[in-house]
């Protein structure tokens, strides 16, 4: 299978700060690949090296099988870029934002206009053609940025937090459209803070922290590999939980995680563990049983220490 992006021991420093440290990953043609991580984990830095706003410090980065230190124009022509912060052109109308950008790729004004109209329709912006982007809501701005990134019909669409700040409806709409693009064969790489987004969109993802990759796999794989299938959340401050319970859960064969003063008990058989809690002095009404999901993996891998301590 061919890779659209491959990184080997890739590193990037800002002065003495090592923003990305020795990360390796490969993004396959046609897949959606995600980067999940805290603020400052190094997600944007990694993407910027791919789309040409940052140079590679150390290690190797291949884009469409070509080794790069700074993405050349010929490769940028095959990328679509949605940066973390909207950088629409306020001096231009919604339509012109697309056509002027399309012209950078050598689209004739006719072609540009046709494509722009197509994407404005696709993203539900067709009634905003002649307004200034300043007048758009956050959600519509974001959609316009994505539409702009599609003007050159990219093979790889790079999305840095595509839905941060959007309401749930808007977010679902963006997901729906991105899945449609993927079904047309466009490869996607995105960063996100939303587990739901990663689960909905990503075939594979990596969890990053302090510039490093902690885990890699499909959402299901990550859940299987890193946590037991059931979780009981304890909705009590730790000080009010009988001290012996934690040891009893461990002795039983369960796992205990603490996230921000809340206890999580993981088990192979959730119902069985649940039935024992009361006898260990933990009232069921303060507990919640559910199956484990990606967020549990994320919190387990990243939640225990703060960013500063790790660096």
């Amino acid at each position, binding site marked *: 299978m061919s890779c659209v992006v491959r990184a080997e021991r890739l590193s990037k420093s800002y002065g003495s700060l090592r923003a990305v440290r020795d990360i390796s990953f490969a993004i396959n043609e046609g897949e959606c690949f995600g980067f999940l991580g805290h603020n400052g984990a190094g997600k944007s830095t990694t993407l*910027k090296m791919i789309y040409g*706003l*940052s*140079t590679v410090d150390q290690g190797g980065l291949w884009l469409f099988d070509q080794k790069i230190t700074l993405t050349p124009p010929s490769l*940028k022509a095959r990328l679509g870029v949605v940066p973390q*912060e909207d*950088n629409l*052109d306020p001096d*231009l109308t919604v339509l012109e934002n697309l056509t002027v950008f399309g012209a950078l790729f*050598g689209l004739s004004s006719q072609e540009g206009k046709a494509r722009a109209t197509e994407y404005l329709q696709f993203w539900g912006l067709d009634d905003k053609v002649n307004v200034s982007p300043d007048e758009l809501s956050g959600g519509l701005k974001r959609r316009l940025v994505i539409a702009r990134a599609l003007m050159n019909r990219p093979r790889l669409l790079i999305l840095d937090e595509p839905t941060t700040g959007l309401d749930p409806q808007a977010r679902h709409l963006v997901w729906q459209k991105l899945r449609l693009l993927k079904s047309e064969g466009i490869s996607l790489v995105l960063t996100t803070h939303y587990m739901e987004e990663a689960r909905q969109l990503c075939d594979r993802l990596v969890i990053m922290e302090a510039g490093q990759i902690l885990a890699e796999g499909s959402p299901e794989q990550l859940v299987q590999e890193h946590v037991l299938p059931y979780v009981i959340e304890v909705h009590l401050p730790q000080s009010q939980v009988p001290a012996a319970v934690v040891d009893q859960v461990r002795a039983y064969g369960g796992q205990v995680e603490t996230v921000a003063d809340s206890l999580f008990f993981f088990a192979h058989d959730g119902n069985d563990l649940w039935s024992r809690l009361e006898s260990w002095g933990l009232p069921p009404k303060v507990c919640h049983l559910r199956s484990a999901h990606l967020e549990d993996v994320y919190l387990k891998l990243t939640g225990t220490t703060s960013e500063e301590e790790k660096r």
Partner: protein
Amino acid sequence: MIEPWRILRRHLTIFSRTFWTNTMFNFFEPFLYLTAMGYGLGAFVQEMEGISYMEYIAPGIVASSAMFAATFECTYGSFVRLHYQKTFHAILAGPVTVRDIIIAEALFGMIKCVVFGAVILLVIAVMGQVRSSLALLIPLFLILPGLFFSLMAVTYTCLAPNIDYFNYYITLFVTPLYLFGGVFFPLTGMPVWAQKLAWFNPLSHSVEVCRALALGQPAWPTIGEHVLWFFIGSALLLAPPIHLMRRRLIQ
């Protein structure tokens, strides 16, 4: 080499839309200087180097307003694109390099220089202050100072930490060029060292060419020297902003 042109099309799209308001605004100040100095001071200064004072300063006002047009575009204008609107970041997502962006800025500043120079030229022609049809060559000539002043300004823009720094550029740098560029009085009245220093003042070269053409008395070899000055100056100024802007845009 088509990329800078593609970027320039963005700037021109916006320029064409705001052309009239832009022109009115830019026309007002030089017109003020021309009338205040030309009529006001001209009433006392009967003659300057054998011509009326108004005729003396009019071509200089063309050259200086052309300088200001390029300068403002590539300081405040460029900085807004660079810093506030992140236009350059957005453009860099396309198949272009930082070099293309700088060339497009310089071309845009040059176009504004030529356009506003031509507008003021038209004004002084209507006021009867142009003697020769050789003045029609002035807009063509302004391409060179246009590129030079744009590149100089955009180099400073690459270094400016915030927009307040352009006050320094204008008052400490461009205004002295304006006052001691031979627009209002001949530099021959100044001490010899100051005259020597004036050779480094780009505006003085532009003023001399514009005046010679407007009066229809060009000494072609001298004009050639001034043209060469701008050619070499612009060539030397091309690399620094590309380098500096790359450092600023790409980490």
